[in-house]
């Protein structure tokens, strides 16, 4: 007997209805790069999978003026290659282009990356840094929640049993902001990050930092904003001493665990070194990069 049944709902509406009916016995199948591995290894078992791959209501990237709307079933490769993402939220495209391998990116989706809630999930960092909002649909209606609030722990989120993630609303970077993403992996590809960092910075005409966001992945139960670093940097004129101090403060905010991918002390040092590098790149980058 097959381990699970497979259903391909013809529309978002029928997906929402069928999924609600299946209760905890159902799962959404997007790229399957997370779910199928978990099912095969016995970590997860479900009676029925609902395939959302061809639901046009959940696919594609649209420009909505001040923000982008990205359908949950949009593939990571399409986010990486998208012109509008590259020009308005460049570090999201950068993060997408470094997720897994080409084969993984050709299947994996943004929605799957978010809902699987790995503390190292690459696209989640720039999405948190941009204050992205998640749109869910269910029989009870739609709900919107900020991605930062949504993430609760490794594999744990605020998603309700009958909810489907429809898409993500991502504010565009405002003019004069610079953004960057760095991923430090154990191996070149196909490695979940040891540490990943995303950030953007906005300086005024005199070179003083007006605003900044810094998000760290893989060093805490969820990706986290380095709030103390942001506060420290605001209103400062960046130079080597300031950036070094910012990097030191950042390392103090991470609570990494030791695991097969790296030791705790090693990770703190990595955070410090790579935060410094990221800030340096942000300060020397040409605009709109």
């Amino acid at each position, binding site marked *: *007997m*097959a*381990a*699970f*049944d*497979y*259903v391909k709902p013809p529309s978002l509406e029928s997906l929402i209805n069928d999924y609600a009916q299946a209760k905890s016995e159902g799962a959404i*199948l997007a*790229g*399957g*790069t997370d779910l*199928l*591995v978990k099912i*095969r*290894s016995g970590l997860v078992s479900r009676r029925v*999978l609902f*395939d959302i*791959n061809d639901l046009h209501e959940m696919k594609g990237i649209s420009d909505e003026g001040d923000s982008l709307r990205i359908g949950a079933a949009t593939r990571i*490769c399409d986010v990486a290659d998208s012109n509008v993402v590259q020009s308005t939220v460049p570090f999201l495209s950068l993060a997408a282009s470094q997720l*897994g*391998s*080409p*084969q*993984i990116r*050709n*299947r994996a989706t943004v929605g799957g990356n978010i809902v699987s809630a790995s503390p190292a999930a690459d696209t989640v960092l720039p999405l948190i840094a941009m204050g992205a909002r998640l749109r869910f649909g269910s029989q009870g209606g739609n709900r919107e929640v900020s991605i930062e609030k949504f993430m609760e722990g490794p594999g744990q989120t605020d998603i309700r049993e009958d909810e489907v993630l429809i898409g993500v609303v991502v504010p565009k970077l405002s003019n004069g902001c610079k953004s960057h993403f760095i991923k430090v992996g154990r191996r*070149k*590809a*196909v490695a979940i990050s040891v540490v990943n960092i995303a950030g953007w910075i906005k300086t005024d005409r005199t070179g003083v930092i007006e605003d900044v966001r810094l998000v760290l992945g893989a060093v805490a139960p969820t990706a986290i904003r380095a709030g103390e670093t942001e506060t420290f940097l605001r209103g400062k004129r960046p130079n080597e001493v300031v950036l070094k101090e910012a990097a030191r403060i950042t390392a103090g905010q991470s609570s990494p665990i030791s695991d097969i991918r790296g030791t705790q002390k090693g990770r703190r040092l990595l955070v410090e070194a790579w935060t410094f590098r990221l800030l340096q790149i942000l300060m020397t980058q040409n605009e709109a990069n």
Partner: protein
Amino acid sequence: MSHHNIYLMVNGKRYSLEVESDRSLLDVVREDLNLTGIKKGCDKGDCGACTVLLNGKPVNSCMVLAVQADGKEITTIEGVARDGKLDPIQVAFIKHGAVQCGFCTPGMILTAWALLRENREPMREEIQKAISGNLCRCTGYVQIIDAIQSAARVSRVNNE
């Protein structure tokens, strides 16, 4: 439903089959279609030995359900040679000693094929990035990258 009637266009040939919902494209192509060029290494997306082109793009066939490929075009290593003639990439792999045990080779060649279709003149780093999802335990990759670069050169000359 746990059984599905599907059809696959594999290497230009149409196959109609009945599959169970939980079977991977990898297993169905190897066991039901008897196309054993693609290999099962890890069965979890790590090694790329199971790479096929799905509507022209390299994917790990261990992570696609056969039923999800219904109606789609699939290219396996068996579809790369044309009219009994090896593809320039295959020739280059042999010439450059890029095949040792051969387990990674079918996936590696399909990935390279997809790369060269989009980028006729890839730099070494671009090749490295493109094959980053295809593990090879034998060669250390240098011969493979050499082979892909030389195949790109040969194809450019042939097309001029």
